[in-house]
Each structure stands twice: as structure tokens, then as C-alpha cells.
């Protein structure tokens, strides 16, 4: 289609990009007088900026800081441990996106487990996983009558081929590892609904889904985060609507722009942020009009609400953030891997928590009104959220005011203060060394070269933290694309 191709070409036009770059530089040097700090939240933005060399093109004028927009990076140790244990469970086939394969956990990874015999398969969509489950169920039914009993007739006949264990396996249960933000959740929800509609009983979903805006809110509460403006995720916004991110301006007074992923999209977003800052008029601008509307994809949001409910969720490097996860609702508990297989693999039964001390029963709480807004009207009425049990410490970066508000039994703070939230539940280190700065990098408080492990103990072919593993990880992008040293001492622009 010639028309569509020429539109994309426009968003990749080097001339337009150059003009925007020059305009941004002018605004920054004449107005701000120091480099503009822009947090780019979304992993795909990280990759695009690196891929097109925009960091260098804007060097001296804009400093990009990477936010928590890489779903693989923010998946915490508890979830990773669950996935590894699921993969090791006989009879389970773990279906996952490719990015998850190499995330390190306790000296292993899904890739290593696969090589050791675990059944792990890379899929490009949850539907593929569902089809796998359906096919496996059909094949087994079709094969059964024809199966000969192995060993019949004695083994002296020299046809000494090995017994294939697959003949003896029970029907495999396909578990889909649902890692992602609001962009991926609708497709997963549809797969769950389809499995229910077609009575596909050997398909389960392990939800590690997260929502972006609560994490941004938690970050903005941290006084050490000194960011001038936010480049908001384009694909998440296509689902949630751009107004999901208005709070950045209305509650925290920072300019924000929802931007697409072509070079001109990104530069335009940065220009708009610089412009709002220069005029002292912070707001939320939708600069990705061709894909994003204010209200977003109503149908997708409804589908999410039919299958998922919000829950408190633990983020690697950031800790427990309220209402930042998505768990599967009771109506679909037969498709929830945490319920169905939790006992089998020693899961704690909570949904997305890192509990401290003795776990109590997860309570139900009132939903924050902003979370209500995020879900469409039909489902948010009567929607409650799963809360952490009594005594669970929330993320240390939450203000005391927020912590008080969100703890089920008020007045209880974990011993040792807010810091307690940073430790893992059972003492498993999850393979993340203490020197790993993924947490700081995700918060935008550090750049990859600030981490002592970067480029030395932690490299793409031998990663320590998830930021180096995922193709969208800040460290991987930095390592792959940036000129080491050209950015100028310690990666600072």
C-alpha cells in the first residue's frame, strides 16, 4: 500500500529528524541552559533511541534515562523461580516469549533448563501456546488406540531402539508465561476466554503481568528521581489511552508526551517536552495520534477486566508496588497456573507478592480511584484488588504516607523500616548479585556504565541482571549500540 508506506517514510525522514534535533538543541541551550533529562519509560523506546543513534544526535542537549518499561527486566525473582520450577515439572510444557529464555536465576535460566531436558517452547503469541495445547490434546487422543505396548515380544530382536518417554507421558499441560504490560494482556485474556469456550483443559496461564502507571507513580514519589519530562509508552497507551498518564502532569507537575517509535516520533516527543518546559506549562500531549486516543482501546480494556483483576505486585529493583499487577480472576481459576499448579511446585499461593514473615491470607481492599479509571466502566463496578497480607512491606520508594494507606492493617510497619522490602522472601538470591545495579538503572538513578559489573562480569553472553538479558533491556541496548567512551566519561551526556 503505497500511501501507508509513505507515511512511515515521513516518520523516518532524516531531514525532518535533523530539523527537530536542531530545534531541540536551540530550545535547551537558550532556555534551560543545561541538558534536558528525559525518562523514556518503554523498552521499545530504549531500543529505538539506540538503534537510530538519537542519543548521540542529541548529545549535550538531552540525556535519556531509562525507566521501568521492560517487562522482562522487572519480573522479579519469585516469578522467575516459579517459571523455572514449572519448566522442571514433569508433564508441563512452558510456553514463553523468547526474551525470558536467558534471564538468569540462581545460576540457571530457562534456556539452560531446556538444554537439560525441561520442556520449554518459545512462542510469539499466547494463541500459539493455546494451539499447542489443543493440538497436544488431539494428538494424544488420536494416538492412543494405535499405541503398542513397548517391550512386547521381548527385546532380543535387536530392534534395540530406546523407549520414547513421550509414549508414556500424560497429556502435557501447556503453561503460558504471561509476562508483559497492558499491551500484551488483552491477547492473553482472549486466549483464556477461548480456552474456556472450547473446553481446552490442558492450557494454563501464569500471570506476571504488570501495569506501567503505578510504577511511574511510585517513581515520581521518589525525591531522588530528577527527571524533567517523560516519554510515555506508545503501545501501552494504545490500549490504556493517553489519559492514563495525565497524572504525571496534574499530580507531579512534569511534562509528558506519548510518542511512537520512529525517529521523528521520538524527536517530536522530546521537542514537545522541551517546549512545555520552556513555557512552564506541563501537560500530557498525545504525539502518537495515529495509534493512540485519549480513552484507548475500550474493547481491549473490557477484555482485560473480564479476565484479570489488579493486584499488588513485586518489581525487580523497585519492590512491591500497589495495584501494579494483573492476576487472573476467580471465574477463570481453572486456567490459572498459580492455582492449578501452585501446590505442585511449592508456590506460596499469593498473587504477585513477596511476603515477609509468616504469610497470612491475602485480603481484599478498596481500589484506588485511578485504577478504577483504568478499567472500563462495566468491570470496575464492584472490582476489588488483592492486597498484600498483614505486615507485608511495600516498596521502599513509596512515601510513608503511601505505605500507610496501602497496608491492610494500618500502623504495622515491618521491622527494620522500609528497607526490609528489598529482600527476597525465602532468602533465595535469585542469582542477582549485590553489585547488580538493575534496580537503580530502572529507576533512572544510574546509567549502565555506572554499574561495576557492566561490560566485565555482566555482558550479553553472560548476563547477571535482566537489564542485560532482554533485547529491550537498558544495559543490553547500551552495550549493543552505544559507542563506549564516545558519550564521555561514565556515560553521562
Amino acid at each position, binding site marked *: 500500500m503505497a500511501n501507508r508506506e509513505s507515511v512511515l517514510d515521513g516518520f523516518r525522514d532524516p531531514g525532518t*529528524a535533523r530539523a527537530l534535533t536542531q530545534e531541540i538543541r536551540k530550545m535547551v541551550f537558550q532556555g534551560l541552559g543545561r541538558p534536558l533529562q528525559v525518562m523514556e519509560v518503554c523498552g521499545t523506546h530504549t531500543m529505538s533511541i*539506540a538503534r*537510530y*543513534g538519537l542519543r*548521540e*544526535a542529541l548529545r549535550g542537549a538531552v540525556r535519556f534515562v531509562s525507566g521501568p518499561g521492560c517487562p522482562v527486566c522487572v519480573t522479579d525473582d519469585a516469578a522467575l523461580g516459579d517459571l523455572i520450577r514449572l519448566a522442571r515439572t514433569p508433564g508441563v510444557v512452558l510456553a514463553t516469549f523468547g526474551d525470558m529464555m536467558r534471564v538468569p536465576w540462581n545460576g540457571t535460566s530457562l534456556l539452560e533448563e531446556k538444554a537439560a531436558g525441561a520442556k520449554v517452547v518459545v512462542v*510469539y503469541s499466547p494463541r500459539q501456546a493455546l494451539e499447542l495445547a489443543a493440538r497436544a490434546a488431539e494428538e494424544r487422543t488420536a494416538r492412543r488406540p494405535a499405541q503398542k505396548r513397548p517391550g512386547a515380544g521381548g527385546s532380543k530382536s535387536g530392534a534395540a531402539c530406546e523407549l*520414547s518417554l513421550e509414549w508414556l507421558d500424560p497429556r502435557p499441560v501447556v503453561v503460558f508465561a504471561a509476562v508483559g504490560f497492558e499491551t500484551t494482556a488483552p491477547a492473553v485474556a482472549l486466549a483464556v476466554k477461548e480456552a474456556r469456550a472450547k473446553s481446552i483443559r490442558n492450557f494454563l496461564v501464569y500471570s506476571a503481568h504488570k501495569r506501567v502507571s503505578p510504577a511511574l507513580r511510585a517513581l515520581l514519589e521518589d525525591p531522588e528521581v530528577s527527571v524533567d519530562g517523560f516519554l510515555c509508552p506508545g503501545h501501552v497507551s494504545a490500549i490504556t489511552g493517553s489519559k492514563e498518564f495525565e497524572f504525571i502532569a496534574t499530580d507531579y507537575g512534569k511534562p509528558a508526551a506519548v510518542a511512537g517509535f520512529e525517529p521523528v516520533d521520538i524527536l517530536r516527543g522530546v521537542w514537545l517536552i522541551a517546549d512545555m518546559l520552556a513555557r512552564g506549562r506541563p501537560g500530557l500531549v498525545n504525539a502518537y495520534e495515529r495509534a493512540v486516543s485519549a480513552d484507548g482501546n475500550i474493547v481491549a480494556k473490557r477484555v482485560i477486566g473480564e479476565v484479570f483483576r489488579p493486584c499488588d505486585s513485586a518489581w525487580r529493583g523497585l519492590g512491591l508496588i500497589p495495584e501494579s499487577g494483573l492476576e487472573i480472576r476467580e471465574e477463570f481459576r481453572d486456567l490459572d497456573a498459580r492455582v492449578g499448579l501452585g501446590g505442585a511446585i511449592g508456590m506460596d499461593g499469593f498473587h504477585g507478592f513477596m511476603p515477609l514473615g509468616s504469610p497470612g491470607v491475602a485480603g481484599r481492599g478498596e481500589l484506588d480511584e485511578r485504577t478504577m479509571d483504568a478499567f472500563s466502566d462495566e468491570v470496575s463496578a464492584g472490582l476489588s484488588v488483592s492486597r498484600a497480607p498483614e505486615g507485608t512491606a511495600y516498596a521502599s520508594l513509596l512515601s510513608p504516607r503511601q505505605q500507610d494507606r496501602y497496608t491492610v492493617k494500618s500502623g504495622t510497619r515491618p521491622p527494620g523500616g522500609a528497607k526490609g522490602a528489598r529482600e527476597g522472601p525465602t532468602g533465595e538470591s535469585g542469582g542477582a548479585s549485590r553489585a547488580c545495579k538493575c534496580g537503580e538503572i530502572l529507576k533512572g538513578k544510574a546509567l549502565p556504565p555506572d554499574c561495576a559489573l557492566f561490560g566485565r562480569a555482566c555482558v*550479553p*553472553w553472560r548476563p547477571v541482571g535482566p537489564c542485560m538479558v532482554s533485547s529491550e533491556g537498558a544495559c543490553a541496548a547500551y552495550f549493543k549500540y552505544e559507542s563506549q567512551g564516545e558519550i564521555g566519561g561514565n556515560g553521562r551526556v
Partner: protein
Amino acid sequence: MFEGFTSGRILMAHGDGGRFTYDLIKRVFLPAFRSRHLKCLADGARLPNPGGDLVFSTDSFVVSPPFFPGGDIGKLSIAGTINDVAVMGAEPVFVSASFVLEEGFEVDDLERIVASMAETASTAGVEIVTGDTKVVEKGKGDKIFICTTGIGFLPSRGEGESYAKKHDAGNSGKVDGAINGRVPLGYEFVRPGDVIMINGYIGDHGIAVLSARHGLEFETSVASDCMPLVHLVKAALAAAGGVFSGEVRFMRDPTRGGLATVLKELTMANGRIDVVVEEQNIPVRREVRAAADMLGLDPMYLPNEGKVVMVVSPEASEAVLQALRRTPGGENAAVIGEVRAGSGGAYLKTPYGGTKILDLLAQAELPRIC
């Protein structure tokens, strides 16, 4: 259908070395490959040796699926090995072919693959002179794996000629005084000021194979570029004044790892140059770029099976470029960058004012691609 088996499929017995194997060779391999060396079914092929240096190359092919737009594992297995020989400056002459077949593989498919191998060999003027067949149990292989080796001969120039003295332009560190009869082709001959070119679009093969993979199946018109490079290499060398002129410094086919990997390996091996290419000059089809974007892949790292990267002296570069453009497979040849003094870096300049470092891939982006 063959005598003795009714299913039209490969059985374990075909790998036993007995009657079934004999049958398979006589009915499938011999008629297709038609070499007098093969016909005698000896343990090895006895071949004439014109003297001089040999180039000897081997490769295994495990591409999945075995049939893809623009080619198949057979065509790939011949072209791939031939090309490795050709880019060394040698004329490929003889090839061997070993097959590992999975029990249950359709004989019809095998015949198609074998016919494809014969045709590719014939296009390139190469003879398949020896081979082997094994069969593994169902589930222990994946339809068909092929291993080919290729032999080519380097022309010899005679004794006592000093190429270093004649062609040295300050990069003499690795070159001995007199190279007796040796072809001056290799990373050590690349020097600052040299021109880097490629014969056409990159990434076609990678995308074509991916589009045929189960579970992906996106619609595309992209076909693999798989082809023997013999004629392209010949044309380029002729335009440069022959392989001994030294005007063509280096050639490599960017298969696994793609163009970026070849460039990086070149600078790493040489150690005293940098390579800088301009993104705008690198030919990439729209469809390939769109598919790569969709899958999160980089065309610079996608495998190609009908491309050759050449580093040519500035004096001969125009003539070589024109010769490539006049040869089938080289119509879209382009100059993509240049060599500078340096220390083993490879760089890509984007049209947006940025420069990217090209490095070796940390992990296989695409398994079973060739």
C-alpha cells in the same frame, strides 16, 4: 514408488548399508548427480590434481523448514559450500554430500532436494563425486540434515614474484617479502582507503526462511537469495585484473551473523583498521525491513546465501562495481563504506546523526537458519 517398500518413506533399513541403501543410491542419488566418479560406488573418489594449492571447505545444513521461498536445503547445501570456496579466490570443482535422514522422511521430498542439488551444482560447474547416507529413528533427527564439503583449486603464479614489494601501501606488517605464487586475498591485505561493496540486498534469506516457519507464517514476497557466487566472483576478479593483481583484497559471504558479523570479524582479524559503513547505502528491501522490524531483528545480522562482501582497492573499485552490476545476482551491487586506519572497530552511521558500534552477536537470533 520403489520395489520392496510401499510407503514412499525412508526406513531404518535405508541406512543399513545393505540392499535398501543400495536401492536408494541407485534410484535417487545416482540419476540426479550423474558423476562418473559416483557411478563406480567406490569408497572414495580418485580425482585429478592439477597442482598448486587446494581450498577445502565443509559445512552442515540443518535449516528448518527444508523448503522455503526461493530455495531448499539441497540448493543451500551446494551453494553454501561452493561459495565458501569461491570467496577464497579458488574455482570450486568437486563436492561431497552426506545425508542424515530421519526415519519416515518422504522419498518424494528427498528426490526434490536431490534434484535441486544437481541443478545448483551444474549451474556452478561443480561435480558431486562422493557421498554417504545414514538414517536415524523417528524423533532423533529432523527430517534431513546434509553435510557437504567442497574442493577448489587456486591458480599458481610461479616462483619468486614479490607481491609485497609491488602492492604494499604501508600495510606490510603481515606480508612477507616474497609470496611465492600465493593469492593475495585475505584480511591482512585490507588497508585504509579501500572500498567496501556488496552485490545486492541483505536479509532476504533470513526473512524467507522465517516466513516459512510454523507458527510465524507471515505473508511476504521475499524469497531466499540462495545462489552460487562463482560467476560473480569471476567477473569481479577479471575486472580487477585477475586474482593476482591484489586489487581485490578480501571477499567473504555473509551467512550466519550477516553483514555486520563479516565486517566485525574482518577488522578484528586485521587489527589495524576500522570499517565504517553508511546505513543509507546498504541495500535492504522494504519488505525485509518491515518483517525484521516486526520480529525485532536487525537486517545487518540476518543471514544471506547469495551475497558476497568485497573489499577492493580504490583504483579498481569502479570497474569491479560495474562488473558486478552486469552479472546475474549483482544487479543491485553497491558501495557501502570504506576502510580507515584504526584498531579493529566496525561502525554504522545512521541517517539521523548517530554512529553505532557493530559487534558480534551475543546470542543466536535465529536458530536453524542454514
